[in-house]
Structure formats: structure tokens, C-alpha cells
């Protein structure tokens, strides 16, 4: 009978710093937030109210109206990313990995650069570009005779959110591009050669050979996009303010949370309702991630060479 392996203490020792830091700055605050949402304020005193705050958030027509509006906007924001950012990212990566493309390194860098810019800069720059008064968008459209297509996009209820989503797509398309690019490069040459011997080349090679092989990477990108989009706040706050105008057309859960938690202008902050919204956001993201992990990730096939 083999001897029992000695307990490997060094594993604990090496894990400890990360576990401690993560617990202190992530898990404890998270539990604090969940806890905060179960209290309320009555006459200056903090009192236990149970799920009362959640009842208000989902039951009171004004609160729930704002919540569903924000959630709907979030969903649309995410949808635009899924429909544009990721396919365009994959397309760019496919083009970049083509051996016949010249200056691939230049394109790769140029497309990736916006990703490293701060939200604040991106927000302000695009606000300036699209400004009907000083912006270059109207004059550029004018130069090609399309001035009539210009509208104050960030100021119109029907366009504002889509415009912001497109700005965000412009900024972050580099991330899926790089991840997919890396995945494409990791496909062994033998596989490609075998495909070519079988006469599968060009687009059909991409669809039948490469795409199935990069599906796990696409899955990871989708879930990153989902988490990022449902936590979004900065771009909207910078370009539209905490009231997410026009008429709450760009209000997402992040701005709704900020407004409620910290207060805005004369509105006093309400940490308890704010924590309630934060908990709801956490729940939504958790649910999304779980669906992904159990329904999609487990079914993705992995190939080993």
C-alpha cells in the first residue's frame, strides 16, 4: 500500500495572498452590498426591511418602469455588440491571418489602439465629432453630398443609444479581433494542409475547418462582452450625464444605479435602493454567466491535436 502523500502546505501558502486580497476587495464588499439591500431608512434610523426594497423596485410602477427601461437599453446595447463587434472582430481576424495580406501588423495595431484609450477620452472625442455645431461629422457628410443624412444623433431619443453602442463597438472591436487572431494562429498547419489536400480552400475552409476550431474563443468573447456590457457605465455617464438623456433613452443599469446610490443634483443618495439595484444587476449577470457555462460551454467541443 502506498504511503499517504504528505499534505502540500506550499499550495496553501502560495494561494493565500490571492485569496486574502480577493476576499478583502471583492467578496466582502459584495456581501456588504447584498446586506445593504435588505435594510432601509426610517426616520434617520437604519432598519431591517427584508425584501421590501426589492418589492419597491419591481412593484412600484415608477421604479420598475425605470428598471425595465434600463434593462431593455442594456439588452439592446449588448445586442448591438453581439451583432456587430464580434462578427466584425472575427472578420478582421480572418483577414489579418490571411498570408497574402500586407502590412498586417499595421492594421492590427491601428484597430487595437482605441481599446487602450480611456472611456472619458472616447466619449468626449465622439461627442465633439458628432456635435452639430462644431463637429466634423456634418462637414464630412457635406463634402460627399450627404449632409441631409446628418442628425444630432446623440440628442435624439431614437438614435442616441444605438450611436453610443456603435461608439463602444468602434472602441472595443480590437479585443475580439486579437483573441480570434490568436486562436486562428494556434490552428496547426497540418490541419490546414489536410484540408487543402481535400480541396477545401478559401471561405469554405474558414466555415468548415477554422470556425469550429475557434468556437470556444468566440464563446469566451461573448461572455466577456455580456459581463462588460451589463456593467457598462462610463461611456454613458461621460457623454450623456447621470440622467442619461434624452429622456432616459440611454439609461442603463449602471447609470440608474449611480443616480440612485450616490444621488444626483438635488436628489439625495439612497444607498439601500442603490444596493438593491446593484444586487439585481449582480443577479442578472450571474444568471447570464450560468446559462452560458451550463448550456453552452459544456457543449462546445474541443479538439486536441
Amino acid at each position, binding site marked *: 500500500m502506498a504511503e499517504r502523500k504528505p499534505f502540500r502546505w506550499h499550495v496553501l501558502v502560495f494561494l493565500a495572498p490571492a485569496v486574502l486580497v480577493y476576499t478583502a476587495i471583492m467578496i466582502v464588499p459584495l456581501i456588504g452590498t447584498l446586506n445593504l439591500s435588505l435594510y432601509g431608512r426610517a426616520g*434617520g434610523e437604519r432598519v431591517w426591511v427584508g425584501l421590501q426594497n426589492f418589492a419597491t423596485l419591481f412593484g*412600484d410602477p*415608477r421604479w420598475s418602469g425605470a428598471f425595465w427601461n434600463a434593462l431593455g437599453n442594456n439588452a439592446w446595447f449588448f445586442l448591438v455588440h453581439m451583432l456587430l463587434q464580434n462578427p466584425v472582430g472575427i472578420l478582421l481576424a480572418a483577414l489579418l491571418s490571411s498570408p497574402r495580406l500586407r502590412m498586417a501588423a499595421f492594421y492590427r495595431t491601428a484597430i487595437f489602439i482605441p481599446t487602450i484609450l480611456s472611456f472619458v477620452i472616447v466619449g468626449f472625442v465622439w*461627442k465633439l465629432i*458628432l*456635435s*452639430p*455645431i*462644431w463637429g466634423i461629422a*456634418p462637414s464630412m457628410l457635406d463634402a460627399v453630398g450627404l449632409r441631409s443624412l446628418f*442628425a*444630432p*444623433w*446623440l*440628442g*435624439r*431619443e431614437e438614435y442616441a443609444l444605438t450611436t453610443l453602442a456603435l461608439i463602444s463597438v468602434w472602441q472595443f472591436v480590437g479585443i475580439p479581433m486579437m483573441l480570434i487572431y490568436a486562436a486562428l494562429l494556434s490552428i496547426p498547419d497540418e490541419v490546414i494542409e489536410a484540408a487543402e489536400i481535400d480541396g477545401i480552400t478559401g471561405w469554405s475552409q474558414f466555415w468548415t475547418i477554422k470556425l469550429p476550431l475557434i468556437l470556444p474563443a468566440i464563446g469566451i468573447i461573448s461572455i466577456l462582452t455580456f459581463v462588460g456590457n451589463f456593467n457598462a457605465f462610463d461611456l454613458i455617464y461621460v457623454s*450623456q*450625464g*447621470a*440622467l442619461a*438623456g*434624452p*429622456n*432616459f433613452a440611454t439609461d442603463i443599469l449602471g447609470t440608474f444605479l449611480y443616480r*440612485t446610490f*450616490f*444621488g*444626483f*443634483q*438635488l*436628489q*439625495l*443618495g*439612497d444607498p439601500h*435602493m442603490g444596493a438593491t439595484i446593484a444586487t439585481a444587476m449582480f443577479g442578472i449577470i450571474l444568471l447570464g454567466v450560468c446559462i452560458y457555462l451550463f448550456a453552452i460551454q459544456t457543449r462546445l467541443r474541443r479538439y486536441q491535436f
Partner: protein
Amino acid sequence: MTRTLRMALLAGTAMSGMAMSGMAAAQDVTLTIESWRNDDLMIWQQQIIPAFEAAHPGIRVTFAPTAPAEYNAVLNSKLDAGSAGNLITCRPFDASLELFNKGQLADLTDLPAMENFSDVARSAWQTDDGAATFCVPMASVIHGFIYNRTAFEELGLEPPRTTDEFYALLEAIKEDGTYIPMAMGTADQWEAATMGYQNIGPTYWGGEEGRRALIAGEQSLTDEGWVEPLRQLARWRDYLGEGFEAQTYPDSQNLFTLGRAAIYPAGSWEIGVFGPQIEGAFEMGAFPPPVAAEGDTCFISDHTDIALGLNAASPHADAARTFLDWVGSPEFATLYANALPGFFSLNSAPVEMEDPLAQEFVSWRETCEPTIRSTYQILSRGTPNLENETWTASANVITGAETPEDAAARLQQGLDSWYQPQE
């Protein structure tokens, strides 16, 4: 465990803090002012603080402003965390009252300089019963319209007195086509509410009388006097610049100061900002909100806007009180009103002002009935809060997203949901 840790951290911070200030100067006390007026940084550093420090050796003052829109959030977090400055710039009414009720602002009722202020001046920084005052009033701002006098002369136009004259004027500027009739946008929303609704509104709801009736529950926002200003705002749409939906507050300021727009719906705080930017390129004039018919009483929004209070947790309460007493003095009033033309002193002592445009604004106090912004006292205490709702509503009626009647009904509905005035 947490308590000991917290105490240890506190003690550590306190000691290092003391060590640092000890190194800087033997017994100098440094006071920090929290404020949202980041535009005024230079004025505080170059004029106001040196004047105080010269008269009071041993007390140093630092002005540490935050961006206006973030101020309340930042200040509340700092106060809760115990890291806020010694002196707190007070927003009028509930935002400050809440801080006082939480024990974060000290009671200043017995400050000698308080005698220099009238009841009205103090009302924005008192408890509802008026028993305790917690901030020293600094200034009020008046709403009206600033216009490009040079452009008016060029087009042969006169400032209007009645609403009809006002629209005739706008129509004439629009027809001429050289200037955008009015510089205002709806992108920031507050511009439409503060410079639009609160500017022309008092004329329709009858100033203080309407405002008090609304608080008492005798009038509602769906009454004629409260809907009519929204209807007027909706009429403004035709006279705003192209793409006004995406025009921000700085855009409007620039349109006017660059001489591209003829009229600017204003708050008097713009006077100090516009002067240096225009640099004599054209002359400015101002007219009060127009009245319905010739000879009607005019109403202006003379809004108690800014005051200074004492952080109750401040370790240098005595020095801070000395500073606050000075802020309440006629000397400060003169200094401040001239350094920042357009911020009108609330001090009972008469203040000489040099700026002609500021004099024009303040002269309306003699002919018109003053009131304050309708949403500031009590009505923005709950959620949804009437001030922020009014921002959206004002912008919506201008862009046409809501009819004035619908907007008014929505505002009243929101107010009804949490505010039940005692009948």
C-alpha cells in the same frame, strides 16, 4: 478585531497628519473648503484667501473644488468617510438640511455674523421651523436673458417687455438669418429647466405665492400657471439653433460668446464667465423675463444659491468659525460680489458693484417680485425628485417628446407618489 484595526489606522493617519502639519508650520491651522465652484479657483486663490490670511495670521485656507455634477456624491462619501474638508460649501435647502440632520454640518445660529443676513437670505439654510441656521449665506443668482447689444443695434431691435414682443423679436432675428435667435440646447437637460422653466416660470405661477401654494398643496403642477411655462418652452423650439438636441451647455455658451447667437437665456453667474471670453468683441445687455401684458408685475428668480458651512467633525472648529464670521462680513460681500460679478451678495449691507451688466441684473430687484426656484424647497426631498424630473420634462417639451400637458401630469404624478402636504 475590526475595531482595533480601525482605531490603529485612524491613529496612524492622525499622527502622520499631525506630523506633516507640524512640519509645515508651528501652529498654523489649515482649513480646506469643499466646493462645486471649480470655475472660481483662481478668484479664491488670488483674491479672497489672501485677503483673509493677511488679516488673520495663523490660519491658512485651501480651496479644493470638485466638478459641479459630482459634488454632492463626492461630498457625501467624503463626509461619511470622515475625510471631508473643514468648510463645506452648501447647496440650498434639502441637500444641506440632510447633512445638518445627520449631524455632519455644525449649528451656526449663534455666529455673530448671522445678524448681517435677512430671514429670506437665511431661509435656504435653516431647519424647516427656522430655529437653527447651519450655513453662512454667500450669494444668490438672478435669471434673465443676456443679449448681444451690438447685434440688436445692427438689426434695429429693442429688448422686449411682453411675451408678444419677445416672440416678435425672435421672429425678426430668425428672419434676418445672421444670428441664431436663442442659444440653448437640450442635451444637458438642466439648461432647459434652469435657464428656461425657472427663468420664465415665476411670471406664470406668480412667484412666491405660487411656489408656496404648491408646497402647501393648494395648487398642483397641472394648474394653468404651472403648465403655461412649459407651453412657452415648447414655442422656443423654432428659435433654437440647428441640432439643439445635441447642443450642450458649453456649446450654448460658446455660440453666444462667439457672436453667433443673439439671445442667451441666462443665469447671472454667466456675467463673470462671458466678459473675459467676449473681450470687447461686442457689447452685452440684459432683460428680465417678459410679462404677459404691458404693465403686469414682473417676477424674477433671485435664487439663494450658495453658502458656507462648518463640517461638524472638523478638528479646527474655532479657526473655521473665525473664517465663517469673516465670510459673513460686509468686507467679504464686497470682495466676492466684485470678484464674481453675477453672484449677488445676500448680506444686508449694501454692496457697490462695478460691473454694469451685474448692476442691470440687480436693478430688477427694485421693479420685479423676487422668488426662488420652485423645485428647491421641500419638493425635491423624495424619489422621484421634482428637480431632476423637471429637467427631463423641460427638455422633452422643447424637443417635442412630450406635450406640455403630459409633462405636467407626469410631474404631478411623481410628486403625489411621495409628497402629501398637510392640508
